[in-house]
């Protein structure tokens, strides 16, 4: 059950680099405060078919988490791989990582949202599950890779749009 306040959902060609820039813009102070090295390395040519508002909500949440769980002087890189049909957006941090049980829990698509077992500190109120649902609504897929004390990489696969299509 998707509990998001968003009612207007409209997929269109979205310039990935710009969207990441816009979301990261508001986090500049936080990143500087924690001395985190942030880089937006999304290729300029990446366009995806997605609803911009929900994509921004997901990115805000993931970046928020990355910053929260990455210690001072850490690293957060956002990149994208472009394949024939997809763009895979990767948000990689050098943070504390996600414990294995929780990781499997989050990557399990059949799991329905519940508060049991989620160890959330104060945050936006949206969980990873919600992000995953929103990505799926955009006909995309989300995969989380993580190693405790080393870091986490979140991969979001979205439909690619060819420029001038």
């Amino acid at each position, binding site marked *: 059950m998707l509990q998001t306040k968003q*009612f*207007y959902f409209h997929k269109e060609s979205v*310039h990935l680099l710009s969207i990441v820039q*816009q979301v990261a*813009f508001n986090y500049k102070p936080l990143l500087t405060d924690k001395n985190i090295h942030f880089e937006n390395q999304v290729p300029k040519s990446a*366009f995806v078919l997605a609803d911009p508002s929900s994509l921004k909500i997901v990115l805000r949440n993931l970046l928020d988490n990355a910053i929260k769980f990455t210690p001072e002087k850490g690293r957060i890189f956002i990149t994208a791989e472009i394949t024939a049909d997809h763009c895979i957006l990767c948000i990689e941090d050098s943070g504390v990582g996600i414990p294995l049980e929780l990781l499997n829990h989050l990557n399990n698509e059949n799991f329905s949202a519940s508060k049991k077992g989620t160890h959330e500190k104060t945050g936006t109120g949206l969980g990873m599950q919600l992000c995953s649902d929103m990505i799926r609504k955009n006909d995309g897929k989300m995969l989380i890779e993580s190693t405790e004390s080393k870091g986490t990489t979140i991969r979001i696969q979205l439909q690619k749009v060819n*420029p*001038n299509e």
Partner: protein
Amino acid sequence: MNNVSVLIIEDTPAESEALVQVLTENNYTIAGVARTFGDALALFYQQTVDIVIIDVFLNGNPDGIAFAETINITPDAARPFVFLTSSNDRQIFDRAKLTKPFSFLLKPFNELEILYALEIAIEKFYGQTNVFLSDDQDTVVSTDSLFIKKKNTLKKVRIDTIIYIEVEERYCNIITEHEKFVIMISLTKLSELLESSKFVRTHRNYIVNTSKIEEIVLPENLLILQGNHKVTLSDKHKDFLRKFNILK
């Protein structure tokens, strides 16, 4: 080149001031700030407006949508617009969707979001998408202007000030009454989008604004244009002359 002109319809002064500041810093001209539906319409028809930023709720009523509905009625008068809203109401979104907004921004938004939304709105309205963010094109063509993205600023050139266009590979040199500058757009695309009655191809490398032709010197394959610009006329392209009534 001129600045792109924005009309702001927003009833909260703090928010409209923030918008004015961001837009001015980014080289947009503010056509005006309207706080009510009535003021909005007045400013829209009195001033030169290229794009409108509309707050959905004005003084408690969804008048922003009514404004969009109104300007959409006359295709010639219609302009691209962006909705700003803090509203989550489903019915509002449904009604707003019917006006075919070119972008929907949820408040609070940041500087980059609004600038992006304006560019996307212009692209969508004139049916030429993925232009401003691509590597090989920087110009959107409307019926009376060219919208050109130079570095991070959007500029506008009125088509009726263009005297001629000289093509150079993937670039076009635009020569107007007062300036000369370069844009990135393919010749094919440009020819498709410019009205063929107003702009004719006179040579492999030249497109001329017919209203700026002052003299045709056939024996020398030459066209003399306003401002004493001389442009070559090639044999292959002489056909267009038949469309004019030329006294022999």
